[in-house]
């Protein structure tokens, strides 16, 4: 029977490689597979049941509202204020503008759930500024492509919600667990920027003359980012102390952003309409992947495919570290071919049970998967963030942006090694 599973998996890979949408491929291959394993009538019944059971899960309500929150923030101009404040306070460092852009992106990520949105928004603000200060464009674009990935790690993260839905891991715990790794990755990125600026000062162009900015203006810049800190604090304070659920957190976040926008008149009706439309479309796209993934996973389970792969890997008697090294390599390869959601839907159903058998914490594994999947956002040929950054730095060749990302890919791998050696980095806040 498991040969059917292998054939199904192969058919899935071929259709995805040809460019058929991932959700549709999962749905159709899953349905065809279930028909072959059982019968067509049962498979058909599964199709509508999957739509209803997945689509009416209350936790799924969180998805459109975290996307909506990020979209509204994108239209409000908060990103520029974050960058201004960060550059006033961190601009004195070697490569200070780069360090400021990492922390501004981390701040933006704390209220936006999408990596692409973080790269797009911050890149459009930061890259022209870095160009004005004669920064090396390879460093600037590589840094911003990579810093954008913080959007996936620092909660609220759409990918963490996706992982939580797939594995039934607590989304609240995943969000809380993402905070320390997100901040540490930002810190490592900044250290790399400072190091590069020290080794070759020409790369960091003209430094910022922060002393020319009056103290009053610097303090005011901090006050202007206070709403971001407040929204982040309310959501994560609420989650951490168990006051509300991730879904309620999403609603409270949107209401807080709308209230702030109303007070400052920073949102137009058109921006709200566009944000709603985008949230609705992205939710449908993710929903189809979830439904298709449900059918496909049921098919794989029925064929014994997942059990046979799990048994094979467990029979290898890999240690925890060897397992992590192998799947990190697997994700690096897949990251060159698939986007984050595609990668996760193909690998998590197979790897998650193995990870549990090896005694790996599901929350830790979630953060790990998101982190290594993020690397795929900056690796050729489908590094989405690189393409996003290319739209704001049209004169910089794609190859140059990819090369610029290499130090930060190394930084992320360094962090993977760190969290593998010290799992408490991830689990400290959730224990």
């Amino acid at each position: 029977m498991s040969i059917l599973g292998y054939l199904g998996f192969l058919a899935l890979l071929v259709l995805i490689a040809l460019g058929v949408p991932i959700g549709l491929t999962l749905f159709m291959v899953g349905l065809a597979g279930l028909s072959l394993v059982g019968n067509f009538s049962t498979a058909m019944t599964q199709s509508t049941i999957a739509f209803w059971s997945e689509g009416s899960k209350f936790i799924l309500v969180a998805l459109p509202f975290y996307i909506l929150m990020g979209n509204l923030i994108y239209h409000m101009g908060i990103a520029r204020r974050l960058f201004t404040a960060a550059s006033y306070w961190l601009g004195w460092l070697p490569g200070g503008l780069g360090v400021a852009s990492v922390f501004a992106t981390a701040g933006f990520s704390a209220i936006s759930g999408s990596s692409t949105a973080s790269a797009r928004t911050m890149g459009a603000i930061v890259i022209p500024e870095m160009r004005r200060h004669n920064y090396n464009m390879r460093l600037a674009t590589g840094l911003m492509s990579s810093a954008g990935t913080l959007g996936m790690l620092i909660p609220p993260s759409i990918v963490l919600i996706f992982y939580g839905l797939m594995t039934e891991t607590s989304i609240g715990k995943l969000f809380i667990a993402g905070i320390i790794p997100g901040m540490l990755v930002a810190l490592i990125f900044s250290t790399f920027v400072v190091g590069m600026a020290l080794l070759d000062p020409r790369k960091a162009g003209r430094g910022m003359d922060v002393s020319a900015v009056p103290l009053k203006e610097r303090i005011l810049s901090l006050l202007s980012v206070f709403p971001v800190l407040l929204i982040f604090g309310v959501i994560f304070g609420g989650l951490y102390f168990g006051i509300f659920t991730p879904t309620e957190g999403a609603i409270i976040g949107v209401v807080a952003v709308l209230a702030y926008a109303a007070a400052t008149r920073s949102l137009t009706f058109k921006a709200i309409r566009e944000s709603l439309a985008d949230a609705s479309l992205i939710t449908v796209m993710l929903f189809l992947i979830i439904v298709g993934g449900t059918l496909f996973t049921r098919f794989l389970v029925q064929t014994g495919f997942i059990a046979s792969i799990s048994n094979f890997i467990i029979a290898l008697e890999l240690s925890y570290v060897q397992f992590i090294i192998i799947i990190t390599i697997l994700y690096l390869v897949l990251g060159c071919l698939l986007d984050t959601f595609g990668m996760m839907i193909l690998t998590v159903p197979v790897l998650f049970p193995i990870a549990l058998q090896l005694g790996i914490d599901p929350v830790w594994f979630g953060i790990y998967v998101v982190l290594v999947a993020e690397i795929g956002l900056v690796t050729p040929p489908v590094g989405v963030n690189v393409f996003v950054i290319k739209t704001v730095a049209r004169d910089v060749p794609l190859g140059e942006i990819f090369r610029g990302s290499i130090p930060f890919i190394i930084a992320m791998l360094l962090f993977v090694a760190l969290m593998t050696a010290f799992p408490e980095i991830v689990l400290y806040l959730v224990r």
Partner: protein
Amino acid sequence: MKALRAIASIMFALSAYVCLPVILVLLTADVSLRYLFNAPLRWGQELASILLFLSVVLALPHSWISRIHISADFLKALLSFRVREVVARLTWLLVLVMAVIIVWQCWRDAQFMLMINESTPELFVPLVYMRGALALGAGVSGVIALAKLLSRTSLVAEEEASL
């Protein structure tokens, strides 16, 4: 195709500009009542879930037209125009097959649900309405897919022109 686009747009408007804002208002009221007066809306979460389901199925046809669904396009540049055209038509054929299966199954489910009067636990909304909405979303998607398949113009050229 113009009429289909208009139908898909209306359904999408209901999804994005009616369902989502209503969920927002509903859950804001629910959360406020829970924390301020310890009196949550008992049916709030169920209604929110139903509205989310409606939002998703109503946006389905527009999602196909707007090509929001993610695909891996690393091979695309290497494929000839002819092969890309075949893949584009295969994609719409799969959308059509999926739509036909869902509509057909919704019809089968509906008969059974009407017989046992299956409904949601709190609000007692007959589940047959949900299958109706799903059939509508899938049906319109299927008709769009059929129109694309019958179209004589190149789907790849059309796709490239819209970029």
